């Protein structure tokens, strides 16, 4: 066996390739493995330097207050180094190592405090020690891999030259041993060090939960913001719309009442105005109600409501909703507004001639796809509509993926858990 399996999938690929490619592949794998070990060595060197800084901290700590900033600076420097190591681990093991530190906010002192109480900080420090040793071991094997063959070659050359009456051949096993140790040892050493680093640098269960919690808090805050903005909008619409119309209506009626005897014609005119005001007020109320909770959603469920949206859309829309049963109300409403916003975007910006909406359940997850054949180029960073969609979905732990290359087509894909 003389292969250097680094990629888990490497074996399958090799089986399907001709021999010549395999040779190149092996050479590439060896070079890659060597490079990664070398990188590990550099990281170890940096770790050693940081450790000296840490020792400096210890020296200074008797001087009250001076040690703390040193330590904070050191920790702050360890993180980028750990990030590099995480990347190296991913290149070796294929799996990425998550990073989850406590977020640094507030005053300098609070930040320093956060740094020091973060379990991730201490795991990083432990890793620093391990890395120095692991990096050195890796470098040793890499050196063996490089030096071994050179040594063997040198011995053979010396022997052929007849130097030392062939006694030089006694050194041959040493060279061979080095070469073989390097060739066999490098991949497992690389994997081993990666495993060690991965274990130490991966966030603990606490950190993982904390990161999740923070994400949830953020999405909740966004939801609350969105809700408050929504309520403000509704209040404004009512205040300037229906309420104002009704005031104007009562005013017209009041004046009509006054004029009834004196100028019946003027009174008739005023009553007609009042009626027009009432009609407009009703219209505005209807629009507003649709914006809060569309009646068709209550009456027909999501499928019917999306059909209704499609019918009202400026662009022809095909609808396919396949759901086993009705979804919980909040989810139904959120999806309705997501689809309404998406279709409004299609109508407003895409210049599409056709679109489809597909909503289905798969493995306990809801999937929504809104596709149009327009000119593409939609960007969530710019459109507030897409941002609104993201916020609505985030409230239900949902994700939005948008593919909209210039020239189209645009495809919005959302996925969220079925039952909350």
């Amino acid at each position, binding site marked *: 066996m003389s292969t250097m399996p680094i990629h888990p999938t490497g074996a399958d690929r090799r089986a399907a390739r001709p021999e010549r490619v395999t040779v190149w592949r092996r050479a590439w794998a060896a070079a890659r493995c060597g490079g990664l070990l070398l990188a590990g060595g550099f990281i170890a060197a940096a770790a050693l330097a940081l450790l000296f800084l840490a020792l400096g901290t210890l020296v200074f700590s008797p001087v009250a207050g001076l040690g703390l900033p040193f330590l904070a600076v050191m920790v702050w420097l360890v993180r980028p180094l750990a990030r590099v190591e995480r990347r190296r681990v991913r290149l070796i093991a294929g799996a990425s190592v998550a990073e989850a530190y406590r977020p640094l906010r507030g005053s300098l002192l609070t930040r320093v405090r956060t740094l020091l109480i973060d379990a991730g900080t201490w795991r990083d420090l432990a890793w620093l020690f391990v890395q120095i040793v692991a990096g050195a071991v890796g470098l040793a094997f890499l050196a063996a891999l490089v030096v071994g063959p050179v040594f063997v070659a040198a011995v053979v050359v010396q022997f052929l030259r007849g130097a030392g009456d062939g006694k030089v051949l006694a050194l041959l096993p040493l060279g061979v041993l080095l070469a073989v140790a390097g060739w066999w040892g490098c991949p497992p050493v690389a994997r081993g060090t990666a495993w060690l680093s991965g274990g130490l640098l991966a966030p603990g269960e606490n950190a993982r939960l904390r990161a999740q919690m923070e994400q949830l808090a953020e999405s909740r805050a966004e939801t609350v913001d969105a809700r408050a903005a929504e309520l403000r909008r509704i209040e*404004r619409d009512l*205040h*300037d719309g229906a*309420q*104002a*119309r*009704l*005031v*104007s209506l*009562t*005013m*017209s*009626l*009041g*004046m009509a*009442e*006054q*004029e009834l005897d004196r100028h019946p014609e003027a009174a008739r005119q005023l009553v007609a105005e009042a009626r027009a*005001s009432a009609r407009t007020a009703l219209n505005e109320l209807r629009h507003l109600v649709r914006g809060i909770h569309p009646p068709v959603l209550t009456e027909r469920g999501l499928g019917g409501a999306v059909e209704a949206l499609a019918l009202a859309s400026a662009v022809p829309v095909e609808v396919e909703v396949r759901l086993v049963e009705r979804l919980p109300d909040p989810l139904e409403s959120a999806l309705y507004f997501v689809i309404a916003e998406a279709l409004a975007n299609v109508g407003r910006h895409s210049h599409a001639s056709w679109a489809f909406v597909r909503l289905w359940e798969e493995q306990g997850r809801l999937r929504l796809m809104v596709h149009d054949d327009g000119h593409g180029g939609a960007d969530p960073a710019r459109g507030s509509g897409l941002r609104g969609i993201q916020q609505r979905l985030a409230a239900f732990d949902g994700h939005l993926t948008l593919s909209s290359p210039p020239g189209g087509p645009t495809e919005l894909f959302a996925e969220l858990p079925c039952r909350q």
Partner: protein
Amino acid sequence: MTSAVIVEDLLLLRDGLTRLLSMNGFEIAAAVDTGPAFLEAIDGCHPDVAVVDVRLPPTFTDEGLRAAIEARRRHPGFPVLILSQYVEQLYARELLSDGAGGVGYLLKDRVGDVGQFVEAVQRVADGGTAMDPEVVSQILARRSRRTPLAELTPREREVLALMAEGRTNAAIARGLVVTTKAVSKHIARIFDKLGLPPSDDDHRRVLAVLAYLNSGA
């Protein structure tokens, strides 16, 4: 003829108010839509009264109220009638806090009752008060303790509530089905209990109403 300034941002209502007041013998000196324009109009046209919407651009919060308070700071006692879609006792108190009369605070709905509304505008222009029954009922709903008002008899409270709305003695008497003389007696006792020194009657009425509004806090 009483000249009035109308401050309202919604065109629909601005026009309606202009028409309504001019039909009822007011001269409309100006009809504007922002607080600064209102303050300018006071300096430019010297109107007798202003009818102001609480919510105005650019903030659409209580710009109108602030402008009104500012107007009364510059011209003490300048009569202002505030109109709003909803009433807040807090706002009423802020308006009255300078102790001068000529303040009204009504729900916009009240404009439908043209006769009463016009009367209220005129009353404010003449230095009286016009508190919306809604404000008054908000205070009644909260049973106040430990205020001079607690010492008032239920009847006196009723009289004070009607006074806050801006009714005259005769109107209060009609409302409570008693004689004007009885009303005068009640009012004298109210002034006494609230510790309002004898002075010009109108001024004391305002102070009594202010005490009344403060009691709800």
